[in-house]
């Protein structure tokens, strides 16, 4: 990032290619909507370019870029809450009174092998539903730690809370996921075998 500040455009390209996918996955799992996640991702990197002059070497670039992404995700989620529009990921109530399934579950997972696609088609919605069921503050901590690999100390910096608070949220998130996955009939063994309880 310092090289980009000095005018090296290729340094920025390196940064983008290194962090683009993890940042995108964080955004996608935070907002739960691919199209909005793509918009937030582009906006995140544009803001990185615009705010390059404000970057200080004392902060890790990862922490800095995730802070930007997280703030944009919060703004996007706030706007979305005002929109009151049905989302593909929004759960619909089934006829039997269950919570129902997200509309995205009915769509085929194109681009995957038949076995892998079938496995993902069954497991991924469950995992996404379990993740989406977490409160935002727990979900963001879990995503940052589990998928982005951000240490708790840095997560505390990104989210603006103390490290103990982050760990507490993490424990709550793990407990919630475990309960939710159990409710959904998903456990480690089922996941390993590709079996789901959903049905």
């Amino acid at each position, binding site marked *: 990032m310092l090289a*980009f*500040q*000095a*005018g*090296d*455009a290729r340094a*920025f*390209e390196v940064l*983008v290619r290194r962090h*683009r*996918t993890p*940042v*995108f*996955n964080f955004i*996608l*799992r935070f907002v739960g909507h*691919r199209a909005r996640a*793509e918009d937030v*991702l*582009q906006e995140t*990197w*544009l803001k990185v*370019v*615009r705010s*390059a*002059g404000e970057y200080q070497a004392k902060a890790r670039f990862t922490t800095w870029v995730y802070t930007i992404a997280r703030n944009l995700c919060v703004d996007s989620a706030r706007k979305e809450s005002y929109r009151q529009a049905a989302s593909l990921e929004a759960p619909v109530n089934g006829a039997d009174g269950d919570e129902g399934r997200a509309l995205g579950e009915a769509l085929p997972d194109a681009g995957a092998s038949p076995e892998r696609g079938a496995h*993902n088609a069954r*497991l*991924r919605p469950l*995992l*996404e539903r*379990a*993740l989406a069921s977490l409160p935002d503050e727990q979900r963001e901590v*879990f995503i940052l*730690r*589990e*998928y982005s690999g951000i*240490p*708790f100390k840095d997560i505390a910096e990104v989210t603006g809370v103390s490290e103990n608070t982050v*760990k507490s949220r*993490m*424990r709550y998130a*793990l*407990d919630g*996921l*475990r309960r939710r*996955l159990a409710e959904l009939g*998903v*456990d*480690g063994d089922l*996941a*390993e075998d590709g079996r789901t309880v959903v049905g």
Partner: protein
Amino acid sequence: MKPQNLHAHEDRLLDFAYGELAAPDAQAVEAHLQGCTRCTQALADIRGVRVTMAHLSTESAPDAGLDSLLAYAQQAARRAAEGPAPAPSRWRRWLLPVMGLASVAMVGVFALRSVAPVAEAPLALRTNADLSRQVAEAVPPEARHPTSSAAPPAPAEAPMAMAMAPAPAHAEPFDGEAPKESYAKKASSTRAKAELESGRAEGWESAGSGGGLSGAVAQGPRGGAAAKSKASGQSVSDPPALGQKEKSVPRKPESVEGGALDNQVAVAEARREPLRLGGSTSREEAESSFDDLAGMEKDTDDMAPPPAAPALAAEAPRRDAAVQRPAPSAPAAAIPGQGGVETKGGRLPPTASRSRSLPLPAKKLDDDRLGGAPATPPQDADKGGRPSSMELSRQAQDARRSGNRELEVNLLRQALSVETSGTERLGLLNRLCDAEFALGRRREAQAACNQVLSEAPGSSAAQVARSRLMRQDGALEAPAAPSQPTE
């Protein structure tokens, strides 16, 4: 295992599960886990969730917008390499407001200047006046003195000036004269310089409206003169209409009336000068300066409304003829204290610089009246810069105003003892004559008047002297038939 140790390890299980514990701490936790089923179960739950959620496949970031993002970043990097854009400096940030304020100030100044509604009229008046004065200066004395016909304008000026004091200010002349002050600010550079040198500018600028009012008062008689001119059926000139009068100036050398107008303009200009001085003394200045020009005619007419110039032009020769009979040329020695006197009798403004600028038209008028015979060039008379003579004349005027005619006589005699030009000397002699008559010393008065007649018999001052002698002798009651003034 103590409960607190158990809780301590549970708190560290999260860090242990995510590999954030240091090696010694991790070994300690592992050792604890071997003997603690609760912590082992807790760790198993954490790992079970992690394993399950790890099946959530990583989504690849879209390529859409990547090129544009990189291009944008490249552009930004190029700008960064060129150096930071010059931030708008402080003076640039202040430039716009300052320019705005300056514009507003300029508009305000112009607005204030344009607010003065009288600023335009006096410009034309003054311009015409300057033009007429220049023309008067340019005209050779021969052209301005068509023999005897040049004399009448002099009395025509005298009554006008004499009527200044008593006549009320009329709206008509006031409108024309009051803006004269504002015009002075727009005067030509030459004139402004002259006024600046004389220190007069600050005088009448500081006078403010006083000058205008005094000018109005002084201009009052002009309206009276106009009325009288109209009453007498004379249509040659319209005194209030200065512009018209001055328009006729170029025709001055062509006819007798033109010469009269020339003098009239010159006198008007001479009278206007003290008016511009403003202040409460402008009226007095007007009177006194006119005395310099026309002697003591003020007394002869005794504040009567001034006749128009043509009327006086016809009237003056009659007086002239009547006076000439009883007025033999008197020896110069008849006037006490006059032996070998070269006087500068002009009643001039207090300062020498004023004398340079103000009496110029007056001297030309005197030159006209005298036919140019004894008069020294105006420049010489002025450049003499003898403030003592002027001061004496002014003091004499003050003494006259205060009613101390004896003192006036003394001062006039002292002024006559100083070297003066012919015209000024004639004016002083006329004033002396008047003062002596006022004191009842007829012989001294006649001597003074005869001195005027002998020195410049064809001049306007001589006419005034004749008039005075005639009046004192009672000849005024039966004026002689008009005749051409003797040369």
